[in-house]
């Protein structure tokens, strides 16, 4: 069985599939109006277009509302334990490089109980796509402060306001040297779809923060980003090689003031100043991406899109390389291994 599986092609002529082929027979049990629906639909819409057989996809999740995701995908899947999805995904991808492994996680799952695994999966450049649904609250346990909840946030567990400084998911991903780092908004379907498509195509560790609304316990947490009328002022779309321009009238931009400090500049639409900050997702240094990750609304627009997309050897290929190298230097001979180097005979 083992050998046969790995011989299966990773891609090839695949019968045309539709969203329906990726939809399981299980009833979706998220609350009506949950931001997760839009993300699920986007993924189910994207995968049939990728030209990879359905049986090659595996969705791995931890615990939380977002982590129910694999049950709704008609692919292989594993709903694992709290925070540990990246560990299972790492073992699965390295043992079975022919598979496309996606991790679905949330702010509590990935950044609190599973923080350690997130860091290491990213720094090892495991070829997995991690989608973090960030709603700044614990939803499944009914409304406690999460690692991304804002300082002072009143929740069931913090009736006097949270006294914990929130964590910045993208800064963690960049510090962990993820090779693909992006952000999208659940309700902005075209740009969400594009980010997911780029994620699917990337070889290496993918980290996508999706700003997602929890309609029951933290409704409106991302109102500025999800409301179409506010979005153009609250967000700046990142585009490789293009200046950072935003606003309904495309008349504002970001440039670096003294040193490495960003500032917003106004200009006449269509006449951006020459010194606007130009996005470079391929920059070898993560410094620019870090600067963008630290920009938030207000007073800055929050960047969305691809922050970083670089190449580095992926873990499973490095592992395969060492095994191939070892096989060159010595054919496996179990008897010789068991015998070792120092033996004696008893007659």
């Amino acid at each position, binding site marked *: *069985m*083992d050998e046969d*599986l790995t011989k*299966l092609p990773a891609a090839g002529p695949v019968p045309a599939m539709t969203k329906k082929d990726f939809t*399981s027979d*299980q009833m979706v049990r998220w609350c009506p109006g949950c931001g997760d629906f839009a993300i699920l639909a986007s993924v189910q819409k994207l995968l049939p277009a990728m030209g990879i*057989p*359905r*049986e*090659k996809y*595996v969705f*791995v999740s931890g*615990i939380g509302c977002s982590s129910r995701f*694999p*049950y709704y*995908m008609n*692919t*292989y*899947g*594993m*709903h*694992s*334990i*709290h925070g*540990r999805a*990246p*560990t*299972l995904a*790492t*073992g*699965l*991808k*390295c*043992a*079975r490089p*022919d*598979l496309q492994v996606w991790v679905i996680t949330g702010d509590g799952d990935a950044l609190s109980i599973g923080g*350690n*695994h997130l*860091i*290491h999966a990213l720094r090892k450049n495991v070829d997995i796509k991690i989608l973090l649904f960030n709603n700044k609250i614990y939803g499944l346990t009914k409304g406690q402060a999460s690692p991304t909840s804002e300082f002072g946030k009143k929740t069931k567990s913090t009736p006097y306001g949270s006294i914990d400084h929130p964590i910045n998911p993208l800064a963690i991903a960049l510090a962990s040297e993820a090779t693909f780092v992006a952000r999208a908004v659940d309700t902005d379907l075209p740009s969400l779809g594009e980010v997911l498509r780029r994620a699917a195509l990337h070889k290496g560790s993918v980290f996508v923060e999706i700003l997602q609304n929890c309609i029951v316990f933290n409704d409106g947490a991302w109102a500025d980003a999800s409301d179409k009328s506010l979005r153009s002022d609250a967000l700046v779309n990142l585009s490789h090689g293009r200046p950072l321009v935003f606003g309904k009238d495309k008349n504002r931009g970001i440039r670096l003031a003294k040193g490495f400090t960003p500032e917003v500049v106004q200009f006449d639409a269509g006449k951006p100043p020459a010194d606007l900050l130009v996005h470079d997702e391929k920059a070898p240094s993560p410094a620019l991406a870090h600067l963008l990750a630290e920009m938030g609304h207000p007073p800055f627009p929050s960047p969305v899109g691809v922050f970083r997309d670089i190449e580095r050897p992926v873990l499973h290929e490095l592992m395969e390389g*060492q*095994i191939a*190298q*070892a*096989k060159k230097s*010595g*054919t*496996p001979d*179990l*008897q010789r*291994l*068991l*015998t*070792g180097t*120092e*033996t*004696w*005979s*008893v007659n």
Partner: protein
Amino acid sequence: MSATQTPSSAGKPSEKNVETVDSVTIRFAGDSGDGIQVTGMRFTTATALAGNDLSTLPDYPAEIRAPAGTLPGVSGFQIHFSSREVLTPGDAPDVLVAMNPAALKANVKDLKNGGILIANKDAFTAGNLAKVSYAKSPLEDGSLSSYRVIPVELSRLTQNALEGMNLSKVHADRCKNFFALGMMYWLYDRPMEPTMKWIEAKFKKTPEMVEANKKALMAGNAFAETAEIFSHHYTVKKAVIAPGVYRNITGNEATALGMVAAAQLSGLALWYGSYPITPASDILHELSKHKNFGVMTFQAEDEIAAIGSAIGASFGGKLAATGTSGPGVALKSEAIGLAVMTELPLVILDVQRGGPSTGLPTKTEQADLLQAMYGRNGECPVPIVAPATPGECFTMVIEAFRISVKYMTPVFFLSDGYLANGSEPWLIPDAAKLPRFAPSAPPAKENFQPYSRDEKTLARPWVAPGIPGYEHRLGGLEKADGSGNVSYDPDNHEHMVRLRQAKVNKVAQDIPPTPIMGPKKGKVLVVGWGGTYGAITAAVKNCQDKGLPVAAIHLRHLNPLPPDLGDILSQYETVVVPELNLGQLLKIIRAKYLVPAVGLNKVKGQPFKISEIEAGIESALKGRGENRDG
């Protein structure tokens, strides 16, 4: 078996008398930087090549280099060798080689009365004596009068032997362990060539150290022969050992080799996820060397990631294992539950050490049995196997994998520090004759149900991702029987809890009849498990030699227990369970079979001495067996 030096032939008329003895125990002790473990391992190899049966026990501190000359820094290595069968590393040494006052102080209480004490006189300086609170040198104050004390200026003699070599004093002094080893080779008539060859290979990058160590070894040998310190030397005749080709092997080596073999026997590639922890790390080190067998080793960021990666690889259709010690098992508990719920094959190696918490990292104990049995949330049964000797780690880890694949379940393999680091001669198995095992083929695609059952094993099918038409989701939520969909139905939950237990119980059908050493019924039955096998067997044989009505069994399968165990227990008046814990198997046996078994318990981080078990048996025979499980 006694470890006494019994003169059995008169001295020969040579310059020095040769005395034949049948059993010797030697302990080397010194600073952890003194090369004690290397010295012990070289003596072991020479002894194996001399044809003796043997058993070894390294005893080293948790600190890599505790302050030189202090008690916490003392490292020891004991070897017991004989012309007869050897089952343990020996109770009390006949010879103690002490490289400094700390080594002397920490070990001399174990030396037999009249035993030989070889001490490095040069290390008995005022400073070193003060470090271990000796007011005067014990070599001179008469306090060691019950031993044959042989002070040797090891440092000075080694320096002299290496004169003209242009070595720094520090480098020259590092060779003194080989000088001491050379002395021991003469004293016990061991061949020097294997060590010479080993030195050449080990130090090939520094030719001056090859020469220096060889010179020191030969000088020590010559010194022992010519100096007027030993009146005679000893020879130990070859033991009667089953014919075949042997090597020396530690439990951790045997475990790693067994894992590579299991992968070959099953046709599945091996995945080993692990996080460094004493005393299990050597398994990771060993497996990492064998990538040419397609072995995938993964040093994870923590214990949970180690098992998580293994569960992921198992889901992917590979032969997966994770290895650790007790504290690591505690961290893996939730993930073991996931493997139970998802019914994926997985082997969890637990090389037990002294606990609780960080406990005694380098010392042995058997106190994780109940953790392996019950240490998880919910009703979460996991089969458990335990090897009895270092060499048996090989066969039992293969057995663990076989069970895990056949029954689709995680399986515990309980080794311990004593087995892991202890070594014994190992009859090298014929690889072609090892039993093969393979996962069953995927069922028909039509109406595929991931939680359907094999009638004989109650195992569910193992279908890894990548095969079209079998797409399914696993997870930690309760599964509906058959479909594997999430189910909160009360009746389904009880059904599944009972089903998972019934599946583990089914493993009993594979357990062979339990061999009984001694009478099939009678007064006392000793029931052991794990690394206490050697001491228990030796003690029971000694008692039987004395004509005492004692029998013994040793359990390799601890969950489920052998199906014949209840009947066996019922044939004896008293059941004694020796364990290096406060009575964990004892509790299980008393609860399951309702027999008034008694415990014989020790938790010192040290293995049983044969004499301790003999005393326990004799006490039980007198009706004074007490249940000391608290």
